């Protein structure tokens, strides 16, 4: 018999990583140059969580799936056009600031408060999903903080797979060092699962799903509550992008082994 689940996915939006990203420091702290004009995507880690959630909800008929996202309303609308054809969900938008630098505690407080107030949510059946990290800032604490504020003590991070058993318990595979997984069994809901990449491929675009989702997404966006996030004294000393090393050289008459040796030397020298 299928379990009836209430799955809430917390998913932020980030600039499309294929864009040219340039850190700048403004009057309100660090950010990205022209971030509002860069196209946004659902945070890749959180996107994995959404697809896993949709898959789980589909396998357990009667389950409900909410997508809670905090960001500028216009950007959320844009991102929905690339996501809403992939999975059925109910969007809960929160109109807030852009960027990966707001205080995680403030963000968690707003998200937890929103989730707690979701009409029809049965917290005993709650699975709180999200990314275990964020593409904008890898603090990886927001989901955990939300769980704590909601009083959920069973928390898992770096999740690649879960199996929901008939008795309602969950077998969870979390990433650990050395490319291995730690296998845990959780008695059941409620639980927090911070997803790594998962094992599912990105779902295909299904126009009917998109059309159905849009009937609720656009009204939800119009009614999105506005959230102001407090800095809580948070101060950034510096922000920088990971350094990109590129060397292009055309070689010929080298064997694969010789190229491999050269690559190893190059990597070692960096």
């Amino acid at each position, binding site marked *: 018999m299928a379990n009836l689940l209430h799955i809430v996915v917390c998913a932020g939006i980030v600039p499309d990583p294929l864009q040219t990203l340039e850190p700048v420091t403004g009057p309100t702290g660090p950010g990205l140059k022209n971030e509002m004009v860069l196209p946004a995507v659902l945070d890749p880690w959180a996107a994995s969580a959404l697809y896993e959630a949709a898959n789980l909800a589909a396998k357990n008929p009667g389950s409900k799936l909410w997508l809670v996202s905090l960001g500028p309303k216009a950007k959320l609308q*844009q991102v929905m056009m*690339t996501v809403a054809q992939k999975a059925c969900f109910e969007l809960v938008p929160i109109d807030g600031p852009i960027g990966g630098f707001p205080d995680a505690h403030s963000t968690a407080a707003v998200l937890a408060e929103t989730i707690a107030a979701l009409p029809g949510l049965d917290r005993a059946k709650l699975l709180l999903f999200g990314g275990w990290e964020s593409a904008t800032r890898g603090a990886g604490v927001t989901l955990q903080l939300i769980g704590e504020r909601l009083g959920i003590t069973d928390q898992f991070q770096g999740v690649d797979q879960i199996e929901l058993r008939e008795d309602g318990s969950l077998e969870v595979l979390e990433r650990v060092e050395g490319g291995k997984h730690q296998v845990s069994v959780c008695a059941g809901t409620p639980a927090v699962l911070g997803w790594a990449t998962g094992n599912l491929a990105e779902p*295909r*675009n299904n126009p009917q799903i998109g059309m159905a989702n849009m009937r609720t997404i656009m009204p939800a966006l119009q009614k999105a509550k506005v959230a102001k996030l407090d800095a809580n004294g948070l101060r950034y000393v510096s922000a920088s992008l990971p350094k990109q090393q590129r060397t292009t050289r055309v070689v010929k008459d080298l064997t694969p082994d010789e190229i491999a040796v050269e690559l190893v030397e190059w990597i070692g020298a960096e």
Partner: protein
Amino acid sequence: MSVEATPSEAPEVERQTMEVDFACAGFGPAMGGFLTTLTNAWNENPADPAFESKATPGMPLQVLCYERADDISSGVSGVVTRGQAIRTSFPELNPAEIPMAVEVRSERVMYLLDPVGASRRSLTLRAADAALRAFGRLAGVKDYAFELPWTPAFLNKHGGLVLSIGQFNQWVGSQLMATGLVQIWPGTPVSEPLLSGRRVEGLRLSDQGVEKSGAPADGFMAGMDVRAQLTVVGDGPVGAVGQALDEKLGLPEGHAHREWALGMKFVIELPEGSTLEPGTVWHSFGYPEPEIFGFLYVHPERLVSVGIFVPSWMHDPSRTAYRYLQHYIQHPALWKYLKDGTLRSWGAKSLEESGRHGEPFLSGDGFARIGEGSGSTNMLTGSGVDEAWATGTQLGEAVIELLRAGKPFTKENLATTYEARRRKSWVERGAREAENARNGFQGGVVKGMIGMALAGLTGGKLSLGAHIPPPHKQVRPFAPRSFDGLMLKEAVAVALEDGRPLHDALLSVRGWPEIPFDGRLLVTQQDALLLGGKVQAIPGFADHVVFRDAGLCIACEEKTCIAMCSGQAITLGESGAPVFERERCAHCGACLWNCGQSPDGVHSNIEFRAGAGGLHSAEN
């Protein structure tokens, strides 16, 4: 005569169907104009019964637009436009609200001399160059550039707008979607129109979960049929829907798609302290080859779009646009401003330059065509965005008129509303003036410039005549017993020695200096895909570039498809036939008209189908 393209391996499958009111293919300036006009009218009175959906009674019109690119901001064009139609739609337009937009403040037209000595110039041009060099500064020559004392009125865009089409599309799209009337779905290619006889009944989306050949694979999902009372086709000059309509319905008598150009550009961040003012616009001709026109548009925040147009009438099969662009930006007149800059983005697109000669049937039962694919680009003024936007607004007004009159979208009704508006408009007047303006170029650059001046200065009353062959016949074969042939042999040796593409080697043999790669502004073409172009294709879609007859490809000496491929997505395979990698394709469509082979005397040997992915740059 028609040709059977290589059949897709996708079997006949049962497809899901969705009913909407308007199904739209492609989101660009033309579709922006159409949807803006529609939503503006709806916003005035959302309760207007004319806007009630027939597909979903009780709801507003169901308007769905499908765009191939992964985001609506992935448009490719830094443009300068007079912007009159755009300003009509947005009377309060403030360019500062659109990132990278600025009003045109100064304009120059320059003839560029060849500082390298490798450009293939005719004797006439060489004589003109010698005269200009001899008189030097007296003639106004500076940095190997001769500036025309004035900008011809037909080229003048003063007071217009410098735009990034990616940013403009994003700005327009956000406003459209915020209305709630329109849904624009990126990452969703449309494979073909749904035809019943000559009536268009909607759009078929591309299959997903297929192999390169189109055969079903894991996660196969047949493309959905989206049925609509009106199908709006704005998928550009190489769009699959427009091509299919041309194929099935034919073109009006005497019309053909025969003139093309590849526009390729860089977005460069200028060095600190640059003296180039936002709103500066330069047009150039004469370099790197006489046939190649160039441009430089300065955006706010020290960004500049700089690029070239490589036309089909260049004839020479070595059309390596990327390398030519690198030589172009190193011309002394440009390099003095660009040399310490940083490449931020790169992109390319095909331009349909046939103008009215390439105009398809603008409307028919259940469909209307707008934008560049409908032949709206004005080849005399070098302007397409504003014209495209205008055709969209004309269709929008026509559709509103028909909705309010309760009339169906038949061929007759669309002709008396949409086509009639277009024929009476400045778009049509401009198109007629420009109709034969470029004829002279088939006979060379000098003749072409004379013909363009004649048409431009007489409002199209005078022009030169020309016979323009199909694009595949405009690719001049290599002549093995000529001087060029000797160069080709030498180039083959260089290519084999260096392992580089033949056409690149040929440019070196012809005397073009090697590019001094600096890893910042001058980068290899493959690096440009990663640093600037950001080309990507998600798995699960079929190859959209298909070689119809591999035997013809193997026998082809020129293989212009490889030379012209913007993303080096077409390379030489071991069998001697070209190989296509969709993950590197920028979707410029240049291969479609740069193939010098034809299996039937009408079509080229390359088919360009619907495909997903492509550029991911919002700055283009």
